[in-house]
């Protein structure tokens, strides 16, 4: 891997083969996870991480006192957070990349059909009604799906299932649910409930404990893997529905499965960590610049890069100020310079590689 990385560096533009990029992203993700488990107020040496996990699995023997301390820091505090970052980052990025292919538009993000707006309203409603954390999660998830259903229904009402009608339906549905969100905010108790809603909407990786993340990580990773399997079909569909159909792709079926999967896992990210913007738009863009547009490699690489991006954003959110900043703010602030860099390519031709 090293050899090809250096080889790529020496010839002008930074170019690696798609496979070596997958390895680079994979190794970086492992490093990012390990670092994220090490850094924080309570210092943990990097070598202690594998040692600890081996001991946890019963394969090594760590002094009991140290093990207990590390168990508290790593398993109870840092691991849920890091895992949340990984599943949320990979779900958002992977569904963003899939949406961009299905809608043949590199500026699309997973919120296109209104899922994020709906989920935000659901969560706010749950908070305003005083539901517990699980109830809020369910409300966010369900409302996210309802918002997409409303968008699709509007599209069906006029012109069937054409892409442009879906986009417009999603916009209308998104606008509807953001005004519903405003109503909830307006009616919410400004002393207690309103701040909770606002903080929740800014996103946080600190809410879930290990069991909760563990549960949701299963469907979310399954969704990411499923999207990844559709890479070649997405390549074909992104050329145009007619072309894809004559190549032998069952366009309607693939599009339905991909949109449904991406919507489900995006809704789950909102119920797990609130609104975290920009990830689904930017990460696939950057990855595409690195290893090309082919969805078979873009989707898995975006999933890994999204996880790395959120781990990094979370690190910044935790450490840049005395108190923790909501991660949604960090991703938005980080997203802007990245997006400007991407825009820099516009001058050299939007779609150039």
């Amino acid at each position, binding site marked *: 891997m090293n050899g090809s990385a250096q080889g790529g560096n020496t010839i002008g533009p930074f170019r690696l083969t798609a496979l070596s990029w997958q390895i680079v992203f994979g190794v970086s993700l492992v490093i990012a996870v390990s670092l994220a488990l090490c850094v924080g107020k309570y210092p943990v040496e990097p070598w202690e991480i594998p040692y600890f996990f081996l001991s946890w699995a019963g394969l090594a023997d760590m002094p009991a006192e140290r093990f207990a301390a590390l168990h508290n820091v790593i398993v109870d505090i840092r691991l849920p957070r890091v895992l949340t970052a990984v599943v949320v980052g990979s779900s958002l990025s992977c569904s963003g990349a899939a949406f961009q292919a299905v809608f*043949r*538009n590199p500026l699309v993000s997973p919120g296109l059909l209104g899922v994020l707006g709906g989920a935000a309203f659901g969560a706010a409603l749950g908070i305003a009604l005083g539901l517990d954390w699980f109830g809020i999660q369910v409300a966010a998830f369900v409302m996210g799906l309802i918002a997409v259903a409303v968008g699709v229904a509007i599209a069906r009402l006029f012109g069937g299932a054409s892409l442009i009608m879906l986009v417009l339906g999603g916009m209308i549905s998104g606008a509807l649910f953001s005004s519903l969100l405003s109503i909830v905010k307006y009616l919410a108790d400004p002393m207690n409930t309103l701040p909770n809603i606002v903080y929740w909407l800014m996103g946080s990786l600190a809410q879930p404990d290990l069991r909760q993340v563990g549960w949701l990580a299963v469907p979310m990773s399954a969704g990411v893997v499923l999207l990844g399997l559709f890479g070649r079909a997405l390549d074909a569909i992104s050329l145009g529905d*007619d072309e894809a*159909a004559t*190549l032998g792709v069952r366009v309607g079926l693939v599009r339905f499965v991909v949109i449904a999967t991406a919507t489900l896992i995006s809704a789950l990210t909102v119920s797990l960590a609130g609104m975290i913007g920009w990830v689904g738009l930017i990460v696939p863009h950057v990855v595409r610049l690195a290893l090309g*547009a082919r969805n078979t490699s873009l989707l898995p690489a975006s999933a890994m890069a999204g996880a790395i991006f959120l781990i990094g954003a979370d690190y910044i959110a935790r450490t840049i100020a005395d108190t923790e900043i909501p991660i949604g703010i960090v991703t938005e602030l980080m997203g802007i310079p990245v997006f400007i860099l991407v825009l820099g390519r516009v001058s050299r031709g939007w779609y150039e590689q």
Partner: protein
Amino acid sequence: MSSNPATTDTLVADNVEFRRMSRPVLSGASLALAQGEIVCLLGCNGAGKTTLLKVMLGILRPYAGAVVLNGQDIAAVAKQSMARKLAYVPQLHQPHFPYLVRDVVALGRFAEVGLFGRLSRADRDTVSDVLDMLDIVHLSGRPYTQLSGGERQLVVLARALAQGAKLLVLDEPLTGLDYGHQIRMMERLSDFAAKGYGILMTTHHPDYAAAIATRVAALIDGRIDIDGPADKVMTPETIFRLYGVKWRGCNIQSS
């Protein structure tokens, strides 16, 4: 490559009707294509040429009538098996993502590879064979989006060939190409027909149609009103009926 009459692929549109927003576009159009032929479809703007092609490709479903591939109604044929018999080269358009040329051409193997499969060695060989056949091996590693129109047209043609289909449907394959590329594309298509491919193409150039077509068909008022050998059909009267202009005659020599 040469076509054995017993196994010649044929595609027939039989009295197809199609409406858009209740406006009839095709009202009983019939057209046939067999291997070894070049059928040029003429018609003025908005006559429904592209619609007829899309109906014949199974992209649009006719309201009445049927499209028959090798004796079987295409409504009952799986997309994947159709892709092995029938390939589509759409009008030039701006692609959205910078796929590499070899990846675009490899999508022609989709029907063989399947939804979740991987390209085999043989698939890759097919891709390099068709790139070689069209003399575009040097483009293989270039992003599709950086190519000129003429090059992109060849890439899409290569993808169609990679499907292994013997019937090719091309929507205005000459539009957007410069004069040299137009002539070269026509020569290529003639070669393919000689090798046993059946080619159905639309064009806005009656002179070119006269030069390469084995048959010329004209779509007027939703019907194929004129259909026959180029030298019989390409008369000033036909051109006047089609476009309402006087025509001095064919000025391109067949290669």
